[in-house]
């Protein structure tokens, strides 16, 4: 394959990954890395390097749109970023020392787990009663968001230590695998800390870029970020995810979600098998 054909194909593939990632809310990274390694035979380290860059681009590119809706909480985000950024450094440190085969297997497990999480969370409702953590007010994490009628709905945050440690884990995964690990971040905020779903997803988007930036320096110095590969991936994912965000209101999101759940499940199995056999 020549560089021209490769660049165009990678751009197109990344655009599809970004589109699906935005429509399903799982981010482009989870399909991008398997796509690059399994279909384009790119070394896993180049793939996670390029993916990490695309994660920063989409998170930052979408932020302006999310902020306008008024759901995201800059305080919750900043507080939890302490955990995710430290985790990201630890993860990037491991990424350089763990054999590629083990990384591929871990990636597969994360894919299957994300698939299961999405399956479980389909059509869920908000919690009725929560026991707020006393730290919620002390740390000024309690907030409010606009309800359907325009009135402000206030919320408090629960289980802060558990949420904080889960975020540390999300940071490690992000640093090891070059993904945003949005699914784990939303899990920590929505399920553990009982933060309203919309607040969780939009705040997670903000955190993803900062988390990824924390491991980017290590990736750069290790040579994981190849300009010829990272460039079409970054531009493709960006175009795809911004298009996806626009199409979101008019798309059959439920059906897409089912398709995506199956796709990442299959990719997860593929990553584990290929990693195990040392074919990546």
């Amino acid at each position, binding site marked *: *394959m020549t560089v021209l054909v490769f660049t165009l194909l990678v751009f197109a593939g990344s655009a599809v990954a970004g589109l699906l990632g935005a429509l399903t809310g799982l981010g482009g990274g989870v399909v991008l890395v398997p796509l690059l390694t399994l279909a384009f035979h790119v070394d896993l380290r180049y793939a996670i390097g390029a993916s990490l860059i695309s994660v920063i681009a989409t998170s930052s590119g979408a932020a302006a749109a999310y*902020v306008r809706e008024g759901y995201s909480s800059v305080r919750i985000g*900043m507080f939890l970023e302490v955990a995710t950024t430290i985790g990201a450094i630890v993860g990037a440190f491991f990424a350089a020392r763990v054999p590629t085969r083990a990384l591929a297997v871990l990636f597969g497990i994360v894919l299957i787990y994300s698939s299961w999480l999405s399956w479980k969370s389909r059509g869920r409702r908000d919690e009725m009663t929560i026991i707020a953590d006393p730290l919620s007010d002390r740390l000024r994490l309690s907030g409010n968001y606009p309800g359907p009628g325009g009135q402000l709905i206030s919320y408090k945050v629960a289980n802060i230590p558990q949420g904080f440690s889960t975020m540390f884990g999300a940071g490690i995964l992000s640093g090891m695998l070059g993904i945003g690990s949005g699914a784990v971040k939303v899990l920590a905020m929505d399920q553990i800390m009982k933060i309203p779903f919309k607040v969780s997803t939009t705040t997670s988007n903000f955190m993803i870029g900062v988390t990824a930036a924390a491991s980017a320096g290590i990736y750069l110095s290790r040579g994981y970020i190849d300009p010829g590969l990272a460039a079409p991936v970054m531009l493709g994912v960006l175009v795809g995810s911004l298009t996806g965000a626009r199409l979101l209101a008019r798309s059959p999101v439920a059906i897409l979600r089912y398709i995506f759940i199956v796709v990442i499940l299959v990719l997860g199995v593929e990553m584990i098998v290929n990693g195990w056999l040392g074919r990546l």
Partner: protein
Amino acid sequence: MRLEIDDKRMELTMGMLLRFGVVMASTLVLAGVFFFLLDHARQPVNYRNFVPHPLSIEHRQQLLSGISHGDAAAIIQVGILFLIATPVARVVFAVMAFLLERDWLYTAISLAVLGVLLFSLTHPS
């Protein structure tokens, strides 16, 4: 005159800041890809084997000379560095905004995040 700022306004400004960073970075990367393809379009591609070409803040001299020679890879790399700097700039902005809000707790929390980011960018590997 006191600068009026609240969380909502802070987030709106952050959103614009991030968008600006992404637009700048993508423009650079797009230009870089264009020149890259002009030079390498017909060459065979190989990413199957990992050959590290490290890049870090210490290589800025090398990057600058690359750009002055119209090196496409160097233009892409500057775009990527610009992109990485974008979320860092958001945290810097948060530090300033919380200072203006006189919210010392969150000034400290943002400074901690900034510290971690700067540590990772200046102490690679």
